């Protein structure tokens, strides 16, 4: 994944602002512009740049006072900050760098040098970030903690596959599990703990443990109802102070390989998509259940879907319906449906290679998970 290159330029001179924005845009930067410190603070309410490049000499609030405002605000303090100014006085430069600025660049520096400096900095940050994530992932792996399975289940007359991409390559809040009870019954679990990165990832194990336990208890009691399982999980989570403050969605599907019937219950999850090969139609399968832990009575229901050869079911989390265009981020379930449509009669591997999936990876807005079930 290339480093993200969103930059906030702050300068009271509109010409300098335009010139820098033009030069940086050419190098692949997404530029946000602010004509004053106050304007920059407004931009920051809506955007989080990867780096801020600010002038020193500005009326009202100068560059130092602006830097101090950012340092005083915990949400902005850690955004890397560079001064770009014509002020060449050594004392001023030293004072600037001492304000936790990563660089102090003079305006007469050739533009390609400025661009290279910013690029080098972002690449170094990105590499360090990747190394940290890799180290933590290795630690998690050593503890044998996985929130997505390492292997696909083998189910008679079914193909089950999945695609998963964590948010910015951190392990995140999405979790997937395949619980093969017997040759006949296989449970498919897809959950999304509401959060991102490590916090959500940690809780995803708590949820997975509850879910695995509930499934096993129900099996021991010969209760194969997905609704019963969700009720059991919800009841425990609702009363558990450790996880009750963290909400999770869950889609639970039971495949009965003997009858080719699929049973589904959901908790605050996105509707599944069901492709009927015979009529070549795609329809939503929506459950009534609320997010796990939200209400004591989760209003769960259970639906049975009879799958014929070529029929498919798609289970997915919200990362697949979020996208970003020129106007900002949006949520659009219908867009995912329309992007999936051309691939319905094609192998899942082709959809995984599609432009849409590439764009989702490039946007990396949230954890993304998609489970594919086909009756062969």
């Amino acid at each position, binding site marked *: 994944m290339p480093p993200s290159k969103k930059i906030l330029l702050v300068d009271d001179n509109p010409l300098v602002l335009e010139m820098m924005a033009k030069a940086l845009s050419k190098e692949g930067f997404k530029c946000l512009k602010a004509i004053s410190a106050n304007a920059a603070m407004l931009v920051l309410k809506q955007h989080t740049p990867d780096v801020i490049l600010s002038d020193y000499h500005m009326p009202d609030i100068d560059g130092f006072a602006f830097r101090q405002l950012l340092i005083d605000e915990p949400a902005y303090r850690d955004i890397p900050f560079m001064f770009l100014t014509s002020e060449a006085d050594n004392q001023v430069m030293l004072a600037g760098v001492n304000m936790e600025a990563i660089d102090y660049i003079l305006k007469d520096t050739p533009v390609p040098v400025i661009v290279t400096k910013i690029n080098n900095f972002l690449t170094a940050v990105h590499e360090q970030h990747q190394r940290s994530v890799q180290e933590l992932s290795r630690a998690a792996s050593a503890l044998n903690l996985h929130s997505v399975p390492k292997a696909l289940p083998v189910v008679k007359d079914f193909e089950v596959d999945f695609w998963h991409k964590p948010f910015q390559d951190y392990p995140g809040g999405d979790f997937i599990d395949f619980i093969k009870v017997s040759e006949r019954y296989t449970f498919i679990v897809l959950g999304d703990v509401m959060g991102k990165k490590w916090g959500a990832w940690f809780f995803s194990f708590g949820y997975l443990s509850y879910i695995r336990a509930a499934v096993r208890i129900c099996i021991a009691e010969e209760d194969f109802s997905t609704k019963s399982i969700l009720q059991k999980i919800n009841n425990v989570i609702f009363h558990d102070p450790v996880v009750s*403050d963290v909400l999770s969605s869950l889609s639970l599907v039971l495949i009965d390989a003997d009858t080719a019937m699929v049973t589904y219950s959901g908790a605050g999850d996105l509707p599944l998509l069901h492709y009927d090969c015979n009529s070549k139609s795609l329809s939503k399968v929506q459950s009534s259940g*609320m997010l796990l832990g*939200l209400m004591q009575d989760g209003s769960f229901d259970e639906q049975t879907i009879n799958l014929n050869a070529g029929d498919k079911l798609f289970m997915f989390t919200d990362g697949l319906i979020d996208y970003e265009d020129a106007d900002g981020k949006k949520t659009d379930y219908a867009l995912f449906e329309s992007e999936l449509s051309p691939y319905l009669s094609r192998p899942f591997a082709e959809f995984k290679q599609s432009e849409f999936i590439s764009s989702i990876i490039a946007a990396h807005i949230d954890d993304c998970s998609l489970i594919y079930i086909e009756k062969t």
Partner: protein
Amino acid sequence: MTIIADVHSNAVVANIQPAEANLTVADSFKTELNTLVDEGYKYLVVSFDNVVYVDSSFLGALVSSLKYAISNKAEIVLSGLNKDIQNLFGLIRLDKAFKIYPTTTAALSAL
């Protein structure tokens, strides 16, 4: 400051400030909203007038505050959801957890 509170005689309106209500503001939003519950308000209108996008972290914070409000015998209602957000609430059944009004005025007059 993720929300600006606007106090009415028997209610408080919490105006979400960021256009993008996401992970970076989810915790402060929850803390600020829960503080309003602690201050004794029993009817809280969360206004989404400024919001164009919510992520699941923010929804988690909102729902967590709802649980906190319920346990304190307070009610949280929502107003001003744009079409995308309204659709999302319908898809994941959050429209059953919250009363949703088109405007803050409608939410206040429903009290």
